């Protein structure tokens, strides 16, 4: 493995390794990360798309999403991962199947009742959390997109259309050019049978109204 010494090492013995390079997750990512979508038997515990149990503290919501390619064709072999705060604006870093809520989840089309490229999460409306530069950020969900044809996963971030005031003052969103900001806003489309809000978020990988993707 190649090693590169820092030009001005802080510690003369320190070495600096290159990060392992990314490769596409490929068309069969589900075998490894979404077993029932591949048609495999599930293990006792799978990391999946229900992040909030009925006993989780806060407003339970449903998120349904679609990823479209540059030809507006649904990416039906996508795997989406989420990372979001709980209702109090805190990340639950200690992942456990015993938790009422986990900040991390995974979804793919074909998981549960989803069809035609749609994927979904059952989660909580996240609370606001601080930003190093000033006021609190708007409630948001971080999303990571993996699929065949995507050589290195894409990071994006979703906010809610019913959080207008929080969105307007969000120090993160304000850095996104105004004309592209709408690509990050999920729309509240309906309420579920038990009165839980359903939000819809369409990610466009390329072309008109291309979603903003981040590097950090």
């Amino acid at each position, binding site marked *: 493995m190649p090693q590169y010494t820092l030009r001005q090492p802080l510690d003369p013995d320190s070495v600096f*390794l290159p*990060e392992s390079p990314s490769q596409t997750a490929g068309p069969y990512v589900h075998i490894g990360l979404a077993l029932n979508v591949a048609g495999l038997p599930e293990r006792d515990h799978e990391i999946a798309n229900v992040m909030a149990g009925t006993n989780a503290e806060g407003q339970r919501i449903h998120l349904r999403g679609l990823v479209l390619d540059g*030809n507006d064709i649904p990416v039906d072999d996508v795997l989406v991962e989420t990372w979001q705060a709980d209702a109090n604006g805190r990340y639950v870093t200690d992942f456990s199947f015993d938790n009422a809520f986990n900040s991390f989840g995974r979804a793919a089309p074909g998981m549960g009742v989803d069809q035609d490229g749609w994927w979904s999460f059952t989660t909580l409306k996240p609370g606001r959390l601080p930003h190093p530069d000033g006021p609190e950020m708007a409630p948001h969900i971080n999303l990571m997109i993996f699929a065949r044809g995507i050589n290195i996963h894409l990071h994006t971030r979703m906010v809610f259309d019913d959080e207008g005031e929080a969105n307007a003052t969000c120090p993160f969103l304000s850095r996104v050019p105004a004309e592209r900001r709408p690509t990050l806003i999920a729309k509240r489309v309906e309420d579920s049978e038990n009165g839980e809000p359903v939000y819809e978020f369409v990610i466009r990988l390329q072309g008109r109204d*291309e979603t903003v993707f981040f590097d950090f």
Partner: protein
Amino acid sequence: MAANEHTAFVMRDRNWHPPAYAPGYKTSVARSPRQALMAIQTPSASEISGPDFQRLTLGPYDNDLLNNYREGTERDGLPVGERIQVYGRVIDQFGKPVPHTLVEMWQANAGGRYRHKKDRYAAPLDPNFGGVGRTVTDEGGWYRFRTVKPGPYPWPNDPNSWRPAHIHISVMGPSISTRLITQLYFEGDPLIPHCPIVNTIKDAEAVETLTSRLDMARSRSFDCLVYRFDIVTRGALQTFFENF
């Protein structure tokens, strides 16, 4: 291991990683953004934290693909193929071990056939092989899987494209900043330089870092060969208290 609020990560070198648009790999043409990525210059907890899987409940054979698809079934044979162990260490760019991090993998069987309902390749499924594994690194960042060596398989890209033998590897690291999915290749495989997916990576040295090495010293006589594959995640930097 979760990052704390005073951690930042070494910037990702996106010339070392493959670019989004790599037309030799045809699916990337319609699935790559045309706009530049937007750089987040002041990361918040949203970027520098991530899930910690120390309390993940794993099954006893989750990292043993020779056994994890036959347990509890009537088909109680072993999978066909080259018995191998794949092991290595997850470290960061400063060489520090990454303990208790989730490493997941999936692969085709010895004939190059995936146990996925969309794979229609003519090579048969192996009734005793599933092709999925997961484990959590130990205190020193070490992980280990037992499996069979996957076969190459054809795919629709160029008229005669074949993937080299490979295992898909997923690692979380301490934060969503370090999240990485990659592929492990095998030393000496002549298909590696022909592969359009491998060749999305421009730097030959970067491809070398994805090529696992035969480790004869750890191979077990009359049992299995061993391949070593180390994974490097982004280096964790302690930041100064800039806002005080």
